[in-house]
């Protein structure tokens, strides 16, 4: 094996090494300070990020390891987003599991991250499947990481439905192989371009693979698990998985649709459009009746999946907008969940909307930060969420899909009502007399400030990141 091949997967290697080291240290040296484990996880993530950055100017082939791992800039950017989310996830986990010896948390988080970074850099459907499995297995465990009943239920639900969706995906993979004789993403495209007739087997394959992805990104009607799992899982885990999984799965979906099945664009675009419409409308409608902020954010993640699908349906035009959307979405959703984590408190996991009553008065700073995230989710200007929506919707209009965009904008108005309800609770209602003032530890503060700054910075100066995303959105195969 050439060393160049190792360089291509160096980011994953660092993550895995750090993960294994954490498990070993945690089990050999009993009672090691958990600060050290968190720092070790952070070091793993940062070295992985450094290794990723060096891949930006990769001059080897377009793939490494016999066409398994993509070395394009899309993979670089995708990995960096996920690593950023993971770093915040470590901070949140450190704060959440205060006073508990849960070293394996960091290891599992790193393994999940590995799966995600593999997913965004896979050039072969088998690698996509491997990535999905690695991240899912780690997340199943993480979801059930506390002893609360809800947590166990979340874990089991996620596992059962997740295993089912993996099977569906695998079946689609087999169909693809049957239709084209290859599982390489670029190879599939070549074979399909050569075919004069649309093979129905390939269409079935798209459908099955699409269903597998739809499950991971929580698109309707594969979204059923989302609210229960997001609510039941420890909030630190929810914030990590809601942001990172979506980024990873959508980038892999872009590769599958815009490269592998690019010759069948005319066939899959209408399907994605329908999926987008159903997803955003159902998500928005259900989000306004939620009484629990975690469930509300879960349905908001469904709605946002719909908006991102609008961008995906625009084909190559939509890649850069979707990337921008993913960056902003990751920032605002991890930030919002982090605030929920601090407000609801570790022991009780009380995250009802009523718990936010008067937060603007009890904890003005926390209230203001939450407002930033909610405002960005609503799509109000000067936040990244606004420009993300403009970009995604603009790309869909530019390919002539204005009715779809009109529906999307109206769905975002419906969703706005849900976010507004939280803002109303925070500023226009008095706190309950026994409501306590949430305590914001320095670690959690950092984990909330970073996404808030990102949300505002990219909302006001999008040109800071746009050229990078622009270069990443060029697919080479």
């Amino acid at each position, binding site marked *: 094996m050439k060393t160049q091949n190792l360089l291509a997967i160096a980011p994953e290697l660092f993550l895995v090494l750090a993960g294994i080291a954490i498990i070993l240290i945690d089990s050999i040296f009993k009672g090691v300070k958990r600060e050290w484990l968190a720092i070790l996880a952070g070091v793993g993530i940062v070295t992985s990020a450094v290794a990723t950055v060096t891949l930006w100017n990769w001059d080897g082939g377009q793939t490494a390891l016999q066409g398994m791992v993509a070395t394009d800039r899309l993979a670089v950017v995708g990995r960096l987003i996920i690593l950023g989310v993971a770093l915040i996830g470590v901070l949140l986990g450190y704060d959440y599991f205060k006073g508990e010896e849960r070293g394996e948390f960091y290891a599992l988080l790193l393994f999940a991250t590995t799966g995600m970074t593999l997913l965004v850099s896979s050039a072969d459907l088998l690698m996509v499947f491997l990535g999905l499995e690695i991240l899912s297995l780690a997340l199943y465990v993480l979801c059930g990481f506390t002893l609360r009943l809800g947590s166990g239920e979340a874990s089991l639900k996620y596992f059962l439905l997740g295993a089912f969706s993996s099977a569906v995906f695998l079946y689609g993979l087999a169909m693809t192989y049957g239709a084209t004789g290859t599982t390489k993403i670029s190879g599939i495209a070549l074979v399909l371009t050569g075919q004069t007739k649309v093979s129905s087997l390939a269409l079935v394959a798209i459908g099955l693979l699409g269903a597998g992805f739809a499950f991971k990104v929580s698109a309707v009607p594969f979204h059923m698990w989302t609210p229960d799992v997001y609510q039941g899982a420890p909030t630190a885990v929810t914030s990590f998985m809601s942001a990172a999984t979506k980024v990873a799965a959508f980038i892999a979906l872009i590769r599958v649709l815009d490269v592998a099945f690019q010759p069948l664009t005319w066939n899959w675009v209408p399907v994605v459009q329908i999926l987008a419409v159903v997803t955003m409308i159902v998500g928005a409608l259900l989000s306004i009746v939620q009484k629990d902020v975690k469930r509300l954010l879960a349905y908001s993640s469904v709605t946002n999946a719909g908006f991102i699908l609008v961008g995906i349906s625009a084909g190559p035009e939509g890649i850069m907008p979707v990337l921008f959307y993913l960056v902003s979405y990751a920032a605002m959703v991890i930030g919002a969940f982090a605030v929920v984590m601090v407000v609801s408190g570790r022991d009780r996991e009380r995250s009802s909307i009523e718990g936010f009553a008067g937060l603007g008065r009890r904890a003005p700073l926390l209230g203001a930060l939450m407002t930033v995230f909610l405002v960005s989710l609503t799509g109000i200007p*000067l936040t990244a969420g606004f420009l993300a929506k403009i970009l995604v919707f603009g790309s869909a*209009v530019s390919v002539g899909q204005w009715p779809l965009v009109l529906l999307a904008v109206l769905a975002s108005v419906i969703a706005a009502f849900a976010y507004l309800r939280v803002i109303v609770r925070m500023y226009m209602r008095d706190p309950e007399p026994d409501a306590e003032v949430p305590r914001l530890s320095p670690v959690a503060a950092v984990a909330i400030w970073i996404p808030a700054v990102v949300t505002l910075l990219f909302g006001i100066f999008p040109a800071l990141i746009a050229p990078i995303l622009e270069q990443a959105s060029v697919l080479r195969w």
Partner: protein
Amino acid sequence: MRWLTLTVFLPLLGIPFLLIPELPDRAARLIALGVTIATFLVSVGMFVKFQKGVPGFQLVEDVPWFEGVGLRYTLGVDGVSLFMVMLTTLVMPVAILTSWSVTEKVKMYVMMALFIEAAILGTFLSLNLLMFFLFFELLLLPMALTIGIWGSKRRVYAAIKFFLFTLVGSAFLLVGILVLFAQSADVLGQGTFDFRRLQELPMTVEVGRWLFMAFFIGFAVKVPLFPLHTWLPDAHTEAPTKGSVVLAALLLKTGTYGLVRFNLGLFPEASDHFAVFVSILAAIGIVYGGIVAIMQTDLKRLVAYSSISHLGLIVIGTFAFTEQALTGSVLQMVNHGLSTGLLFIGVGMLYERTHTREISELGGIAKVTPWLAGVYLVAALSSLGLPGLNNFIGEFLVIVGTFISSHVFGVLAAVGVVLSAIYLLWSYQRAFQGDVPERWKGIKDINRREVLLVVPMIAVMFLIGLFPKPFLDRIEPTTNGIVREVEAAGSADLQTGEAP
């Protein structure tokens, strides 16, 4: 010097100071007042730099912001936006002065006001459609919070209603803007949001009409035009005085301004095509708003409904497509801001003293507070179009101009003026004249701060009423240009056999 940038962003300079912890409320109010007065002075500088008699945009600033989506930072001022800006910078310090009576969360209250001022100024001065939309949306949240936090009893309901209504409107507006961008990308090769380039964009009649409707819905909610007006009475009535003043005087104008600037400016053919439809809605608003205002028992609600009637007059003049009517409409936007703003201030001052807005409970207050009654009377007389005061000039031009283009709508516009005389004078009679009830005997007349607050408004009202020429001279070149464009597009239709 970048006059426009300075005008738009000066209000925001106050915000870092307001974030100082432990800042006393009084200092917060003074900072906000100082910043808004400074903004007014800067806008006077802009006014001086503005060359009259020149059509088109002046003092243009154009810097790339986010080229990837055609978002450029483009500001410019012309005869229409000039007075909108002046109105904003004049009304804001006054609105801040009314906030002296607010005692809760003062810092946040004035901070919202500064945000709103910057956003409104940006809305009036943006020449890039996406940037315009950005400011237009930015207005929403601080305004909704102002209503929802500091309003009266049903404030949360009113705030949410206001927020959702305008958000639905802007949804259509956004789609319209994006489609226009895609059109420009098709025709010019590279998409643009630049208003000046989009004005010259050739488009088919059908596309123009669809886009007109999208923009129209967006602005009609803000104006508000019948039947999209239902948020207005609630929002105006529940908002604190400052909120009502800003809503009535400034926020509604972003809708009428949008109609003049974008609907007429970008889609002249469609404007001509839909003129009758829009005028009918406006006429319904004039008559309906007037009649409902007569029936009100709550003084603040009465003023709110009078806004619907007055705004209908502005829209009917906008869509008459005569030079007089459009010029009158633009002037009337300023006038309505001044007189309705003052009416709300009057009602607010009355409410602070009596804690009621029920007309039947007031009665005879003029005997105890003659000066306060005088302020309300001046505002009412101005609002109903007494010669010598500002509204007379604007309403007269609108009615004459509308009458030239259509007798029916001209008469309906005049009906609005008659109705306004009924509800305003009658409300004055019921609330201020007659015997004083025992419990109002002890209330105080207006104090020094309140004098400071009403004097500039009244002064400008007389200024426009007695010397309208400097105002008209600056508005006319722009409005004449807009009317010519629409007429040219309309007559082109006639030649090709399209129904007008």
